């Protein structure tokens, strides 16, 4: 602060005050969209948010149009999307969790070594990969060779997205555990395998589980990769090799079909509730089982 003339104290005070107010205003403005989005989704979505949404499949465009003309509520729900999301995300969880845990444990055990740093860097690279590119990958690996769109292809895409997040949270949690845990276990003659499964993983449960929940909530709303892989279906499908719908895919369908537009907000409302619920549980778990 090399000023020749001293700046008056009042002007410095005034600048300080202005900056403080600006930080408040801009921070507040950054929060505004959330409330607008929530208001939009809740106020437009609650009307069709009923039992039917959960028990019936998506109506055909023609049925929806007929109901519209007659002034009836839209005849159907999104059961096919709910079951599809469960199937696709569930399978992605099965594919990504064991692998993610193992990689995370390996990385925290070999911190600073060359191979581990390479793997760590590649994990970051995977995490930064646009979801649409991951969709292309799953298309090239699963859809093309197996000759058709399938829930499995969607799960592979989502699993690739979840993997780096689970690796990171496992690694970070393991790094936070006191080294004494591991050393005490080993010095008592316990095998490394036992130390990992009986001491490290249980003690790090909170952090790891939080990471998994956040990863699930992140892929729950993914649409782009599923468009290239799971495609969508208008019936409930539990077969992994068949095209399958998902909640976000249905939002996309409704967006493109003016007759089904009445379902768009209630579906979005359900999706937001699921995602926020997962985030909320993750927060509670993180607080309760703090490492």
């Amino acid at each position, binding site marked *: 602060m090399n000023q020749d003339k001293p700046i008056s104290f009042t002007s410095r005070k005034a600048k*300080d005050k202005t900056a403080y107010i600006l930080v408040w205003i801009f921070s507040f403005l950054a929060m505004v969209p959330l409330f607008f989005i929530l208001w939009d989704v809740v106020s437009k979505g609650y009307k069709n948010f009923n039992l039917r949404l959960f028990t019936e499949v998506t109506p055909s465009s023609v049925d929806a149009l007929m109901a519209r003309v007659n002034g009836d509520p839209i005849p159907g729900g999104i059961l096919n999307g709910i079951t599809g999301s469960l199937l696709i995300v569930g399978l992605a969880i099965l594919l990504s969790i064991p692998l993610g845990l193992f990689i995370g444990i390996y990385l925290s055990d070999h911190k600073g070594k060359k191979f581990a740093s390479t793997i760590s860097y590649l994990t970051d*690279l995977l995490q930064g*990969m646009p979801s649409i590119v991951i969709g292309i990958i799953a298309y090239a690996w699963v859809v093309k060779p197996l000759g058709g769109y399938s829930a499995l292809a969607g799960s592979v895409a989502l699993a690739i997205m979840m993997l780096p997040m689970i690796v990171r949270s496992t690694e970070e949690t393991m790094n936070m555990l006191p080294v004494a845990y591991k050393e005490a276990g080993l010095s008592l003659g316990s095998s490394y395998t036992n130390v990992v499964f009986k001491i490290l993983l249980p003690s790090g449960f909170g952090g790891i589980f939080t990471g998994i929940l956040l990863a699930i909530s992140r892929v729950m709303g993914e649409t782009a990769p599923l468009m290239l892989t799971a495609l969508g279906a208008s019936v409930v499908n539990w077969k992994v090799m068949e095209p399958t719908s998902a909640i976000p895919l249905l939002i996309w369908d409704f967006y493109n079909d003016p007759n089904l537009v009445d379902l768009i907000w209630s579906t979005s409302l359900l999706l937001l509730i699921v995602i926020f619920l997962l985030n909320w549980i993750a927060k509670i778990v993180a607080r309760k089982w703090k490492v």
Partner: protein
Amino acid sequence: MKDKIFRFFLFVAALFVLVLSAAIVYALVSRSSEAFQEYGIWGFVSNAEWDPRSATEEYGALSFILGTLYTAFFALLLCVPFSLAVAMFNGVYFKGKKIAGVMRSVVDLLAGIPSIVYGLWGFYTVRPLVIDLGVNAQGFGVFLSSIVLAIMIIPYASSLSSEFLSMVPNNLKEGAYSLGATRLEVVQHISLPTAASGIVASFILALGRALGETMAVTMLIGNTNRIPTGLRDTGNTMASVIANQFGEADGLKLSALIAIGLLLFVITAIINLIAKLVMKKLSHA
């Protein structure tokens, strides 16, 4: 013995990341080779023509590359004041206070909203406002997508920045305060310069997010296959053209779309690498 097997399993799992990455690059390269062989890499990248009609079939990526850069950089520009404000709110002005926790939760919620819901909100709520502003008749275009994109990347830019700001050592700040500096002067001369490379890295990472963002942009940019002439114009980004045209594509067109995916992958990888280098510089300083 059991331990050896288990350790071997862990190693194989780690090795899997390497295999996965290699397989990803291989899949993208091999599936896009048809387009690159047809036009050459430079020919494909520098051609703005995208014409899927079978008689005059021709594919180039330039319109989408420029469309992506326009929207992402404009979104980054828009998000800077808000992200910085939130970062300073959480990391400096109200560091450790309850209200910073509230702000953080709000930002987390913003980050949790799926892209497609942002797209819906942009279509039904922001688009009419953009039309009222007189930007263009339909509202769709670079301007609308950038506004929504900016809101979407605020959480990424601000949460990492605020972490770096809050890591600025207290004794530095207290030193300045004891010399009679105001809070703004401490922020200006101590906090921001000390955390500078971390903040820059967070904004680079946010840019990476904006470059690859798909659904919201696809719903808002207007999807025209030409170079946007300005913020008011419609266009297409690399991600949005893939999302829009992948379904009905085959042959050369499919290969060209995957080639765009490969380019997008390379661009985001470079962006992430730069962010990483900037952060590394920070840890050495």
